[in-house]
C-alpha cells in the first residue's frame, strides 16, 4: 500500500469540523426538520472518520460498518420523519419549543 498523499489526520479533522457543525445545528435550530438534518450531518461525519481509519489500518470491515450505519440512518430518517408528520398534524408546527407537554 502506498503512503497516502492526504494524511488520515486531515480526514479526521474535517470529520470533527463537520460533526461540530452538526451538533451546533442540533442545539441552535428550533425547527425539527433542520435538527434532523443536522443529525444526518453528524452521522455522515462519523462515517467519514470510519472510512479514513479503514484506509489507515487497511481493514475492509470498517466499510461494512459504514454500510450498516447508512442502513440504520435510512430507517431512522423514515421513522423520524413519520414522527414529525404526526406531530405537525396535531400541533400545526414543527418547532421543537412548542412540544413541552411533558414538562412538569
Amino acid at each position, binding site marked *: 500500500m502506498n503512503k497516502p498523499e492526504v494524511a488520515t489526520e486531515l480526514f479526521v479533522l474535517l470529520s470533527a469540523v463537520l460533526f461540530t457543525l452538526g451538533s451546533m445545528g442540533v442545539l441552535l435550530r428550533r*425547527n425539527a426538520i433542520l435538527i434532523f438534518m443536522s443529525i444526518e450531518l453528524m452521522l455522515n461525519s462519523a462515517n467519514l472518520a470510519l472510512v479514513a481509519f479503514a484506509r489507515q489500518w487497511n481493514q475492509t470491515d470498517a466499510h461494512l460498518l459504514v454500510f450498516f450505519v*447508512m442502513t440504520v440512518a435510512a430507517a431512522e*430518517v423514515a421513522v423520524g420523519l413519520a414522527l414529525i408528520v404526526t406531530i405537525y398534524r396535531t400541533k400545526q408546527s414543527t418547532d421543537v419549543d412548542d412540544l413541552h407537554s411533558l414538562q412538569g
Partner: protein
Amino acid sequence: MVGTELALFIMIGALSILAAVMMLISENAVHSALFLIVNFACVAFLYLMLSAPFLFAVQITVYAGAIMVLFLFVIMLMGAERVLPQETQRFPWLSSATLGITMVLLFVAGLAIIRSDLGDSEPKPSQPIFRFVHAVAGTDAVDVYINGERVVSDLEYREASDFEKFPAGSYTAQVIPHNADLVPENVLLETPVFLAGNGVISYVLTPDVANGGVQALQVEGRIDANDEKDFARLTVVHAIPCAAACPIEVADITEPSDDPQVLVKSLEYGQVAHLELQEGDYTLAAYNQGDVRAALDERGDTDEKLNLNALVEIDDKVVDQNTGVLWVVTQDTTGGNVRPKILWFALDNNPDFGSAEGIGQLLFTDYLLPFEVIGLLLLTAMVGVIVLTKQHETPKKERFRRRMANVAGNPTVEEYMQSMRKNAADSSGD
C-alpha cells in the same frame, strides 16, 4: 508544493464545510436540504479518495438520493419550507453556551488529532495469512486441505490462491488432485504448516527432484508498509527442477545500454532470495549462474553488444513503494516445448480493499448475522412508519351514534333530559 490529491481534498473539504454552514443558516428548509445534498456529495467524493468506491455509490444513491428525497418530500408536503424567524428563544443563554461548548470540543478534537501519531503506525494483518502457489509444470489443478477442511479449490498451474486467514497454530496441509477424494493414495503432498504472529506466507508447490512428487517451499513475505524507505520487496523463488545443481542469477537490465546489474548472485533450485528495490519500472532477467560474468569477460573493454541470452526476462513491471512481489521462476510446458517462465504475484495482503467484491464477501461470511438484523430493523421501521402516520379514524359505533343523534325526530340531549325530569316529577307527585 501541494499535490493534486491534496489540492482536491482541500477544495472538496472546504466546499463540504461551506455547504454545512449554509445548511445551518438558511432561512428556507428546502435550501437547507439542498445544501445538505451538496455536503453529502462532497463526502461521497472523499470516500472515493479514500479508495472506497462501493461506499461512494451507496452514499450517492442512498443518502444524497433516497434519504434527501424523503426529506424534501416531507418539507413540501407540510408546506413547512419557510422557517419562521425565532421570535422568542425559550432559553436565551443556549446560543452562547452552545457556541462555547462546540468551540472547546473542536479545539480538543483538533489538538488530539494533530498531536496523534497516526502517521507512524503501520497497517498490519491481524492474523497470519497464507496462500498456495501452483508451480508444478505439467500437472493438473489441485485442491488443498488444511486439517481435513478444503480451503483451496481448483488451483491451476501458474496460479496463486487467495490469501486465507487462520488463527496462529500448527496445521497439516494436504494437496490432492482437484475433485479427488481425500484418501491417502490420492495425497500428492502432506506437509506441516506453521502459522505465527502476523506472518504472510506463500507455499509454493514445486516438483521434488530428489524423491519425486511435490514439495512445498515456504516463502515468507513482509507486506507491511515501510514509510521510511522507498523500497519495494521482491521475493525470488527458483522452481525450475533439475537433477544436478543449476543455480541461477537475477540481474537488472532496465537500461539496455548499461551492463546488467546482478541482484542475486546464486540461487539454487528450491531456494528463496529476498530483494529490496527502489520503486520504479524494472526489466529483470534470470540467467544461468555465471552467464553475466562470462559475457562481460568475453566482451572485454570493447563497445560491442553483450552476447547474453536470458533464461527468462520480465519487463516493464512497475515496482511500487511498499508492495511485495513474489517471483517464481518456473517452467512453461504449454505448446510442447519446455522453457522457463516467470510467475509474477503481487503480495498485496488486501487486493480488494474497499471494492464491492471484497465488501460482499465479508457481508456474506463474517457479517451475515448483523446483515440479517439490519434487514429486520428496516422491516420494523417500515411497519413503524405505517403505524405512526396512520390517520386515527373515529370508531364505527361513535360515528353511528352521532349520525343517529342528528336525524330529525330523535330527541336531543336537552329534550331527553327534560323528559327525564318530567317523569321524575310525575312519579314524585303520586
